[in-house]
C-alpha cells in the first residue's frame, strides 16, 4: 500500500516537472523562431504560400460561421428586446457582442481547429519522415525555412479573419433583424453607430485578435516541432494543439478583457 502511494506521488511530481520543462523548451523555441524570422522575411514568397494555406483556405468556414452566429444573435436578441419595446437596439447588441468578444474568440477557435491543427500535422509529419533532419544536413535551418513562415502567416491572417468574421456576423444580424423581421433599417444602423466606439471597441478587438494569432500559431508550430516522430505522436500533437489553443484563447480573453474594459461602461 505505501509503495502505491509513493508511486502516485512520484507520478504527480514527474508530470509537474515535465510540464515545466516543456514550457521552458517552448519559450526557448518561440524566441528562436522570432530571432530567425529575419531570414524568412527576406523570402516573402514563402510567407505568401503559407498565407494561402492558413488564411485563404480558412476563409470559407469563417464566412459561413460568422454569418450564422450573427443571424442567431439577431434572432435571440430580437426575441428578448421586443419584450421591452427596444427591438431597434438589436443592431447594438449584435455589433458590440461580435466586435468585442465573439468575433475575436470564435474566429480564433475556428482558426485553431482549422489552420492550427493543419500546421501541427504538417510539421509533425515532416519530422516523422525525417525531412527536418534532411534540411539540417543540407545546412538549411528548419526553423527559418519551415517554422517561421508558418508562424508569421498565422499572425498576419488572424486579425483579417476576425474582422471578416465580425463584418459577416453584423451582415447576418442585419439580414435577420431588418430584412426578415422588419426592424427599422435607419434606427438599426444609427443605434449601432452611436454605441460602437472606434477606439474602445473596434481597436481593442483587433488587439485581442493579434494576441490570439500569436498564441495559436506559436502553440501549433511548437507542438508540431516537438511531436513524437510516429503516427501516434503526430495525432496526439494535433489534439494537444486544438485543446491547448482553446484553453489559452479563453484564458487570454479574460485577462485582456479585464485590462481593456475596466472602468469604461
Amino acid at each position, binding site marked *: 500500500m505505501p509503495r502505491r502511494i509513493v508511486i502516485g506521488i512520484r507520478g504527480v511530481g514527474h508530470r509537474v516537472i515535465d510540464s515545466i520543462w516543456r514550457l521552458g523548451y517552448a519559450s526557448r523555441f518561440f524566441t528562436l523562431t522570432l530571432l530567425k524570422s529575419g531570414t524568412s522575411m527576406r523570402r516573402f514568397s514563402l510567407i505568401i504560400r503559407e*498565407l*494561402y494555406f492558413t488564411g*485563404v483556405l480558412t476563409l470559407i468556414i469563417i464566412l459561413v460561421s460568422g454569418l450564422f452566429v450573427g443571424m442567431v444573435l439577431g434572432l435571440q436578441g430580437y426575441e428578448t428586446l421586443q419584450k421591452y419595446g427596444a427591438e431597434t437596439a438589436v443592431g447594438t447588441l449584435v455589433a458590440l457582442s461580435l466586435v468585442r468578444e465573439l468575433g475575436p474568440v470564435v474566429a480564433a477557435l475556428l482558426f485553431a481547429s482549422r489552420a492550427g491543427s493543419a500546421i501541427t500535422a504538417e510539421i509533425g509529419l515532416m519530422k516523422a519522415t525525417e525531412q527536418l533532419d534532411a534540411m539540417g544536413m543540407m545546412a538549411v535551418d528548419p526553423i527559418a525555412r519551415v517554422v517561421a513562415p508558418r508562424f508569421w502567416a498565422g499572425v498576419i491572417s488572424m486579425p483579417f*479573419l476576425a474582422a471578416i468574421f465580425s463584418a459577416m456576423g*453584423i451582415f447576418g444580424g442585419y439580414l435577420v433583424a431588418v430584412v426578415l423581421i422588419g426592424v427599422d433599417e435607419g434606427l438599426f444602423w444609427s443605434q449601432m453607430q452611436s454605441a460602437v466606439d472606434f477606439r474602445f471597441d473596434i481597436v481593442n478587438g483587433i488587439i485581442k485578435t493579434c494576441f490570439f494569432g500569436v498564441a495559436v500559431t506559436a502553440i501549433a508550430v511548437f507542438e508540431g516541432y516537438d511531436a513524437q516522430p510516429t503516427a501516434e505522436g503526430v495525432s496526439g500533437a494535433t489534439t494537444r494543439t486544438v485543446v491547448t489553443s482553446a484553453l489559452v484563447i479563453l484564458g487570454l480573453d479574460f485577462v485582456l478583457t479585464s485590462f481593456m474594459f475596466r472602468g469604461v461602461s
Partner: protein
Amino acid sequence: MQRTTMDLWVGLFVIAGIGALLILALKVGNLGTYSEAQSYTLVGYFENVGGLKIRAPVKSAGVVVGRVMDIQFSTKTFDAAVTMKIDNRYQFPKDTFASILTSGLLGAQYIGLAAGGDEGMLKSGDKIMKTNSAMVLEEMIGQFLFNQASEDGDGGDSGKF
C-alpha cells in the same frame, strides 16, 4: 503558373480583410460621424455628476455635439470637474448653461448644453460658469417625503402621509 494563382488568392484575402476592417470602422463604428481631431475642450464643474460616465454624449437641442472625456474630483472646490470635447463646428456663447440630464426614465445620463445670449464664444480650455447637477433619485424622494410631512404637520397629524 501555380504561384500566380496563389498570389491572386492571397491578394484577394488581404483586400477582403482590409475591407472588413474599413466596414467595421466606418459603417459599424462612429469613426465616420465624429472625429476627435477637430475638437476643443471645455470644463464644467458640477456639484453632483450622478451616473455620468466617460464617453457619454454632450448634446445641445438633442443633437450630439461632443463627448465627455474625463471626470475628476476637484479638491479645490470639492466638486466634480467634467472635461468634454466639443466638435469644432459647434461654437457656444460664454453664458452657456450645462446640465446633466437623463435620456428616458431609466436611460443613460448625458450633458445638455443650452446656449445663452452672450456675444463672446467659449474657447478651448474655458470653464462653463453655469451648471446644474444631476437629479439623484434618492434625494428627490427624500425631498418629496419631507415636503409631504411638513404639509401634514401644519394640519396637526405628523408622521402620516
